[in-house]
């Protein structure tokens, strides 16, 4: 099962990952992080396919992706 981890204090709340995710499983937090940004969160981890598109588009390297077993590769990176 794939697993993504958003480092909430690194996130600047740009929302690019939200739109990059083909599964639309990321949402913005309702509370601010220490920098003063709403940060990205995984709402529905069970539907993550491990394509890493969110991490690819993150300008701040705030997202780590891990997989166990199968993952979908949308683009060879």
């Amino acid at each position, binding site marked *: 099962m794939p697993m993504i981890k958003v480092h909430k204090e690194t996130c600047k709340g*740009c929302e*690019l990952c939200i*739109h990059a995710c083909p599964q639309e499983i990321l949402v913005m937090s309702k509370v601010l992080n220490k*920098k003063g940004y709403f940060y990205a969160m995984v709402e529905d981890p069970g539907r993550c396919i491990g394509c890493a598109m969110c991490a*690819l*588009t993150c*300008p*701040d390297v705030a997202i780590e992706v891990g997989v166990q077993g199968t993952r979908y590769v949308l683009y060879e*990176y």
Partner: protein
Amino acid sequence: MIETIFSRPESLREVSTHYCPGCTHGITHRLIAEVLDELGLRERTVGVAPVGCAVLAYNYFNCDFAEAAHGRAPAMATGIKRCRPNLIVFTYQGDGDLASIGTAEIFHAANRGEKFTVIFVNNAIYGMTGGQMAPTTMPNQKATTCPFGRDVETAGYPVRVCEVLSKITTPSYIARVTAAVPKEIPRAKDALRKAFQYQAENRCFSLVEFVSTCPTNWGMNPLKACEWAVSDMMPYYPLGEFKTPDDPLPAGLNLIEGDE
């Protein structure tokens, strides 16, 4: 066991950048760092930072770095690379830096076939100084020094760096990519990989232009900025490879034989 398939590359320091939220500078930095990691070049790489939003790039990369004067990064890189040809040298420059004040330096570095790599961030505006017109600003695009939009009658048309540099006879690798579209990011990385690979093989000058965004000075949210880069910039700045070192030399070159 969980296998990490995506994390911070070693060539990027564990620090937060000063770039605005959603600015593609950050993606571009990461791609360079990933390529340096993959090719195992970090320990012999020297970066040259520009004057522009990326002026503090040296705080983000985990390799030796110099900070150049505005537009002069290619000259500085020439000095470093010629003195230490075993180093991998790259410059990282904005459009004001590279295509305005530093036009002579980039043109002649390419023409001499300097064996270093240029990462050119084209965001159609002067970011750092607060949104003035750049040589790459689109026709009718508003900027603080062209509040009614770029007037091509007085400012000319935007400069297309890849198109110009690829016309130079000296072999080089010239490509335009973008990090503003998720599916283009892997392709951008491919181009960077090639650029650094060509340098590592001591083959040619290489330049990768990134069609980039400046949400802050464009006055758009990051997603809208990415969409604008696609709708308004890319038709004029098409992506692709413009020149590779394998291209044949133009016909009619009468090479003068040297004395044996």
